[in-house]
C-alpha cells in the first residue's frame, strides 16, 4: 500500500493566520505548556501551541500524527472578553479512507434570543458557506450531542470518504473558508460598550469553556489519552477551551 500523504492542515491554517502578530503563550492557569509544544511518544508525535494577539485572548493550533493510522488537527480562537465575536472552532480527523471535518463559529450569545447577532455573525457571515458545503459527501450532524448543542446553526460537519486523494483537500476547504471570514470579522470587530451585552457574552464564554472541558476530558481520556498520555490530552483540552 502506498504511503498516505496527510493533508497539510497545519501549514494551510498557519498561512491564513500569518498576518496576525501572534505571541506564544508558555502557560495557562499555572500549567506549563512546553511538553505539548513539541512531543513524541512511542505511538504519536505532534505539536500544539497557544498564542495571544490583538483582540485575541487565546488561539490554539496544532496537529498530531498517529504513525500511519491518522492525522488530527485542531484550532480554536477565543476573542478577548470585550469582543462579542463567536469562537472559531475547527476539528480535523484524517484517516486512510475518510476525514471527519468539523468547523463552526460557536456563538457567544443565545442565538434564539439575539437576532441581530445571529444575522451578523451567522446568517451573513457563514450561512453562504454552510449552504456551499452542504453538499459535501458525507455531510452529517456532529457526532456528539453536546457539540451540536454548543455549535451555531450553521456548523459544517462531514465524514468525507476518501474516494480519491483530492478529497482530502476538498474536506479541508470549509476550515479555510470559515477562517478567512472569521479573520475579516475579527479585523472589523469593535469592543462591546453595553454592560448588559458584555455580561451576556462573558456568561456564555465561561459556560462554553466549562462545558467543553467537562464533556471532552472524559472522552479524550479513552482516545487521545491512550496515545499521547492522559495528562497531555487534558492539557490539550485546556488549551483549546
Amino acid at each position, binding site marked *: 500500500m502506498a504511503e498516505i500523504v496527510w493533508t497539510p492542515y497545519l501549514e494551510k491554517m498557519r498561512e491564513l493566520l500569518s498576518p496576525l502578530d501572534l505571541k506564544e503563550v508558555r502557560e495557562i492557569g499555572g500549567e506549563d505548556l512546553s511538553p505539548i509544544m513539541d512531543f513524541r511518544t512511542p505511538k504519536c508525535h505532534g505539536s500544539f501551541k497557544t498564542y495571544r494577539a490583538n483582540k485575541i485572548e487565546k488561539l490554539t493550533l496544532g496537529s498530531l500524527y498517529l504513525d500511519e493510522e491518522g492525522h488530527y488537527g485542531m484550532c480554536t480562537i477565543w476573542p478577548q472578553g470585550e469582543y462579542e465575536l463567536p469562537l472559531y472552532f475547527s476539528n480535523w480527523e484524517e484517516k486512510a479512507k475518510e476525514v471527519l471535518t468539523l468547523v463552526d463559529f*460557536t*456563538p457567544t450569545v*443565545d*442565538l*434564539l*434570543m439575539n*437576532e441581530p447577532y*445571529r*444575522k451578523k455573525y*451567522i*446568517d451573513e457571515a457563514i*450561512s453562504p458557506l454552510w*449552504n456551499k458545503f*452542504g*453538499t459535501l*459527501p*458525507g*455531510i*452529517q*450532524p456532529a457526532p456528539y*450531542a*453536546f457539540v*451540536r*448543542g*454548543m455549535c451555531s*446553526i*450553521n456548523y459544517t460537519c462531514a465524514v468525507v*470518504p476518501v474516494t480519491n486523494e483530492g478529497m482530502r483537500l476538498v474536506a479541508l476547504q470549509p476550515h479555510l473558508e470559515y477562517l478567512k471570514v472569521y479573520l475579516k470579522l475579527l479585523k472589523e470587530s469593535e469592543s462591546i460598550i453595553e454592560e448588559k451585552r458584555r455580561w451576556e457574552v462573558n*456568561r*456564555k464564554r465561561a*459556560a*462554553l469553556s*466549562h*462545558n467543553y472541558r*467537562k*464533556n471532552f476530558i472524559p472522552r479524550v481520556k479513552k482516545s487521545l489519552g491512550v496515545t499521547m498520555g492522559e495528562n497531555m490530552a487534558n492539557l490539550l483540552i485546556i488549551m483549546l477551551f
Partner: protein
Amino acid sequence: MAKVEYKDMIKFVHEITEVHNLFKGLSLAPLKSFEGREIEPLMEYETKLASGFRRLYHVEEDSKIEKICIGELHYMKRAIYSSFSMTPTKDYDLPMFMVEFDQSPPWVSVTVDFFPQVDIAVYDDYRVKYLDPLEPLWNKYKEIPGITEGDRCLVGRRFAPWAWALTTLSPYVIDGKVREQEDRYRALEAAVEYARVWLKLCSIAEPIKEKAYQEEVLVRRRQIRQYYEERDPGVEVSKKIFGEERAEMSMGLLF
C-alpha cells in the same frame, strides 16, 4: 418513487390516539379557551378550501402539563397537515414537544423535536436531563430515507431557509421529507416514541425553584412562540383558510 394518494394518507390523530393509544392513563379534559381566547371555531371547521379539527386538552390533576394540542387540516382532498404539541406549565422547564406531519402525494414533511426552553450551551445539565434520553431514538430514526439520503444526512436542513426556526431546534431533531408509505409510518412511529419519552420525563420534572431562571425560561418560550406565530410559512396558508386572526391563534395554540 410511489406517490401516496389522499385516500391512503395516514390519519395522524387516529393513529396517535387510537392505534398507539398514546394518552392511555392520562385524564384528558378538553379546553375551550386558552389565555382568554375562545378556540371553539378552530375545534371543527369546514371552509371552501379545507376541513379539519383541532383538540386542545389539559390533564386533570396534573400540574406539569399545560396543554396537549393535536389536529388535522385536510386541504382540498390533496393533502393533510397535522400537528401535535405538548407543553409544560410555567413552573416547569420541560422542553416543548413538537410534531409537524404534513402529508402530500410526493412526500411527508416531518419535524419531531423537543424544543429546549433554555440555551443548552449554557445549561449543559438540561441537555443531559431532558434531551439525551432521545439519543437512541434519534440514532434509530435519523436513518429513515429522506431524513438521511445515501451518505447525505438532511437532519436540520429542511428548516434551512428560516434561520430563526433552526435556533429553536434541539440536537435531536428528526426533520426531513419522507416519501415511501412504509417510511412515512416509521416517521409517525418516531413521533410516538418521542412523545412517550416526553411523557416519561414529566414524571422526573421538578418545579423551577429560582425566580431568575424561571424568568429566563418564560422569556425564551415567549420568543419561540412569537417567531412561529409571526413567521412560520404555514401561517400564510392558514390565513387563506381561516382569516388572519384565527390563523395566528391556531399557530399560537401549539406553543
